[in-house]
């Protein structure tokens, strides 16, 4: 084992593994966005801002009210799920028959609202949970426990969604809607209700992501901007509404960011990821997993 590790640069391997760990959370974010796009055919530009609100919820419950992390987490997930449902009910539902771009821009307005709400309510200070999780040493490599935990929780979350989508009547209906909206009523499915459920589910995933991200990052009103764009790129590259594509693209991007970050700042990892994205558009314009016609 040691001999094998010697061949490779130890830091390179560490970065690769950290990339995989980051990929879990990104995949979770992409899944939520893809779910909503796949079912309702809208893109929530403000998705990352929902995560931001969730991070604040965690911060206040844990730091301010002294709740334990594991008790605060379900509440946060519920809260953001509720926000998701509310977003659909108040903003998307009135626009369902409007041109798609209008729906998208309306969620852009919500992005403004959430960001500035956070600024007004919580100020622009950076805040963190103050939980310092230990660092795991493996050979000469160090892995943050927080990342490992996030990765595992993200996986569990995604498996739960998978089971829900494949095993339950509601999950099956959610998968069916995008294939034929008109006849859903013949199945006894109330499409409006399904949209609300899907929005809540998408919100819940954002809430879960918030619980995980707050372990690693400080929360501030603009924190959504640091992972929102990358989530959109992942979804576009994976093909909007394509769960498997999004999953793979998440790990590809996470590796690029992590390896790019190895050589300089994390921000350059993002830039590299964007450059990669542009190149990929030339090679596979319809997305990573598009079927060739």
């Amino acid at each position, binding site marked *: 084992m040691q001999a094998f590790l010697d061949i490779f640069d130890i830091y390179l391997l560490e970065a690769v593994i950290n990339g995989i760990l980051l990929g879990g959370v990104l995949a979770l974010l992409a899944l939520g966005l893809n779910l909503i796009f796949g079912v309702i055919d809208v893109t929530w530009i403000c998705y990352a801002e929902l995560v931001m609100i969730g991070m604040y919820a965690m911060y206040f419950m844990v730091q301010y009210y002294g709740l334990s992390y594991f008790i605060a987490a379900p509440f946060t997930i519920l809260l953001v799920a509720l926000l998701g449902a509310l977003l659909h009910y108040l903003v998307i539902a009135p626009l369902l028959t409007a041109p798609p771009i209008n729906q998208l821009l309306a969620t852009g307005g919500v992005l403004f609202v959430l960001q500035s709400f956070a600024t007004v309510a919580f100020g622009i200070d950076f805040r963190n949970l103050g939980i310092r999780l230990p660092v795991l040493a493996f050979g000469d490599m160090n892995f943050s426990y927080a990342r490992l935990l996030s990765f595992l929780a993200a996986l569990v979350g995604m498996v739960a969604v998978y089971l829900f989508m494949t095993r339950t009547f509601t999950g*099956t209906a959610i998968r*069916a809607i995008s294939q034929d909206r*008109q*006849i859903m009523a013949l*199945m*006894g499915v109330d499409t409006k209700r399904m949209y609300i459920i899907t929005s809540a589910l998408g919100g819940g995933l954002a809430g879960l992501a918030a619980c995980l991200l707050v372990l690693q990052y400080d929360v501030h009103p603009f924190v959504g901007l640091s992972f929102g764009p990358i989530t959109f790129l992942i979804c576009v590259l994976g093909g909007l509404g394509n769960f498997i594509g999004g999953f793979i693209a998440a790990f590809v991007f996470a590796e690029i960011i992590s390896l790019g970050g190895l050589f300089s700042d994390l921000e350059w990892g993002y830039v590299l990821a964007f450059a990669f994205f542009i190149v990929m558009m030339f090679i596979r314009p319809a997305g990573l997993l598009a079927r060739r016609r």
Partner: protein
Amino acid sequence: MLELRSVDAGYGSFQALFDVNLDVKAGEAVGVIGPNGAGKTTLMRVISGLIRPSRGSIRMEGVDVVATPAHRIVSLGIAHVPENRRLFPQLSVDDNLKMGAFMKEARGTYAKRLDFVFELFPRLKERRHQMAGTMSGGEQQMCAIGRALMSNPKLLLLDEPSAGLAPVVVQQVFELVKRIRASGLTVLIVEQNVQQVLHVVDRAYLIEAGTIRSSGTAAEMLASDTVKEAYLGV
């Protein structure tokens, strides 16, 4: 069981049905025949709530269908097999059938209904994990009918079940309709294949340009001059 009284319906400013009166009694099989664009599909859609009548009343066993939300109509016992089957192509046969049993009343008997459908269509059991969109036209029609049967309906609406199928398969489909009738279901079937359908149903309505032109027993319709000339090519 089902009664339509003075029903007008259409799409936007386009009116497709004019003053339609139609009855289906329990245990009957009733056909609706007529040329393309006569309003046959509209008739089916207005019964199952996909479009709403602009005038008139529709009652299912005395319950006002027009006042029932579209997604609750299937709970009244009306199952609609839409034109062109309209399966969920990216879902497996199993999942398609599951969708048929979506409503709360049907979920309890899901396993039982699934056995019933698989017994009726052994072919579907073989293909249960296959994507519905990859099956042949005949198999897809079975799946679509099976999906409708999953809701344990009293009345089955069949819209052009033979459309787009090979002649041999058309024969099979009509055999199927007979078997479904035999199981005690009431059937309302829309067809362009007049000859075939009149051998399956008890009564039929002839619809032209959105209006019921004539009606009668299958035998009467087969003997009728208008039907003979226009649709049977005799």
